[in-house]
């Protein structure tokens, strides 16, 4: 078999062969190879995570008209290692009344809920499990993150941590609904829940066919990640920093790292669902090239999250839940049947992509028009009331 057409399969077969050569049973050799593969993937992802710290700090400094880390190593590239050493040698503090087992388990579970997502992330056509329930799997793993946040908030024995985690969980549960609806649209277009199949079905990028679904996913994913403008738990004056107040040293580091990696992973999912994933020129001839395209697209999507984070001010929690329940959820419930219907009507025609794009524009325009009318009505009501009292 040619190495470059599927390097992972090649290495997998080779390693299984080596283990079998040592006199191991075929089953055991396959299981052991799978474990080695998982270990390698997780290691690479964690190394990527280290550089995400650097990337994040560089992005924020650019948005705030600063230079960012530039002292340690070229372009400050060694800075995250200095940060990690600092975190590791910090004192490990247990506040009074901490529920130790739960307290220690929470950051691990948090990191796990992000790493599990990489099992279905379609890095290339041959890497990334094409689970036939892939989209649901993404949602299910997100549920583990919710549990981790509640565990962290409760076990800290701190009212602010508990309140922060309640807020975060309320937000995550509510924004799950528009997120699932937004993910239904690529599923309907591709006719499969397998994420690699969705990528393979994107002859036209889904951001062209469903820009509204992309926006919906971007907003709800930002809320799920708990990043600004939806980072309510970091209301410094009220709640300090939410569920991870009491964590110090590397345990806090795990929360921080998992947050950054979560954002990058969701950047990867945006790339997979809406930017055509690993697809690009010459990928048919050299499948390994897909990895490069995927990383580039995922980084662009990650930068998009950064752009949002450092541009918008924080939203108050009632406004945020209003935005979800009174706008995003009804909008999602209109969007899914509408796009499914347009997809069914236009699929066989020659102007499919253009028609879908225009349909999205029309629906977006109608939504903005309805919102504008309502806002005018509300304002007229308020002004009328002011005049009556004045």
């Amino acid at each position, binding site marked *: 078999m040619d190495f470059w057409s599927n390097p992972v399969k090649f290495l997998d077969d080779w390693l299984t062969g080596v283990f079998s050569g040592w006199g191991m049973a075929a*089953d055991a050799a396959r*299981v052991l190879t799978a474990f080695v593969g998982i270990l390698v993937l997780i290691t690479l992802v964690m190394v990527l995570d280290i550089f995400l710290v650097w990337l994040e700090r560089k992005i924020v400094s650019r948005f705030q008209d600063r230079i960012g880390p530039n002292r340690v190593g070229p372009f400050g590239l060694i800075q995250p290692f200095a940060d990690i050493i600092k975190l590791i040698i910090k004192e490990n503090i247990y506040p009074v009344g901490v*529920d130790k087992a*739960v307290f220690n388990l929470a950051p691990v579970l948090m990191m796990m809920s992000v790493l599990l997502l990489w099992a279905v992330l379609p890095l290339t056509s041959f890497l990334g499990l094409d*689970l*036939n*329930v892939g989209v*649901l*799997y993404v*949602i*299910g*793993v*997100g*549920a*583990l993150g*919710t*549990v981790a946040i*509640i*565990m962290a908030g*409760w076990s800290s024995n701190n009212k602010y941590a*508990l309140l922060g985690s*309640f807020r975060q*969980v309320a937000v995550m*549960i509510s924004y*799950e609904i528009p997120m699932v609806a937004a993910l239904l649209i690529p599923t309907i277009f591709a006719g499969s*829940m397998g994420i690699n199949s969705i990528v393979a079905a994107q002859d036209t990028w889904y951001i062209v066919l469903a820009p509204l679904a992309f926006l919906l996913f971007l907003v709800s994913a930002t809320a799920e990640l708990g990043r600004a403008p939806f980072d309510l738990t970091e209301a410094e004056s009220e709640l300090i920093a939410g569920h991870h107040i009491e964590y110090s040293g590397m345990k806090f580091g795990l929360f921080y790292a998992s947050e950054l990696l979560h954002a990058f992973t969701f950047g990867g999912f945006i790339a997979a669902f809406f930017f055509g994933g690993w697809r690009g020129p010459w990928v048919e001839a050299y499948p390994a090239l897909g990895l490069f395209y995927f990383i580039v697209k995922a980084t662009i999507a990650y930068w998009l999250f950064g752009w949002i984070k450092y541009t918008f001010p924080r939203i108050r929690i009632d406004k945020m839940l209003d935005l979800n329940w009174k706008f995003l959820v009804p909008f999602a419930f209109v969007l899914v049947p509408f796009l499914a219907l347009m997809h069914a009507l236009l699929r066989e025609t020659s102007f499919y992509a253009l028609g879908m794009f225009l349909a999205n524009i029309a629906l977006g325009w109608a939504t903005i028009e309805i919102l504008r009318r309502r806002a005018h009505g509300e304002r007229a009501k308020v002004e009328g009331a002011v005049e009556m009292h004045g």
Partner: protein
Amino acid sequence: MTAAQIIFLITAAVILGSAFMVVTTKNLVHAALWLIVTLFGAAVLFATLNAGFIAVVQVVIYIGAIAILFIFAVMLTRRSMTDTGPGLNRGWWLSAAIALLTFGGLVWLVSGWGGFTKAAPAYPSGFDAVAALAHALVSPEAFVLPFEVASVLLLAALVGAVYIAFQRKGEE
């Protein structure tokens, strides 16, 4: 022993152990967390039975929604953080008897079933279990009626929840 048997034994041990902890631990939040372990173990069992869809749905619904709801309910209950007091009340022997009877009945029922000694048949190639389930749920020959009845029930619950929480005008 095959790999599937080893995985089953480990999963079963985890499920039984955590289920035992659910009913014996005195801290209610710990009980809810142990329940999550039990539910996750059930999801693993579904996954080993080639029912990937049910496994993921088990995690989404039972861990993502119901367990979180449990934890919220426990935390909103008064005095839930104090883990003193007896774990058993006067009716313990009755519930133990009912549990034993149920277990005995189940064992008696499935002991006559021949499926234990057979290996699960593999799916034919190209068979999509999720698509088959979807067709079964909306096909008139299969389960479309129970499916619709369940959706009406959920809708009724939703309307009821809105009605209870709704604040009428002029009411504080």
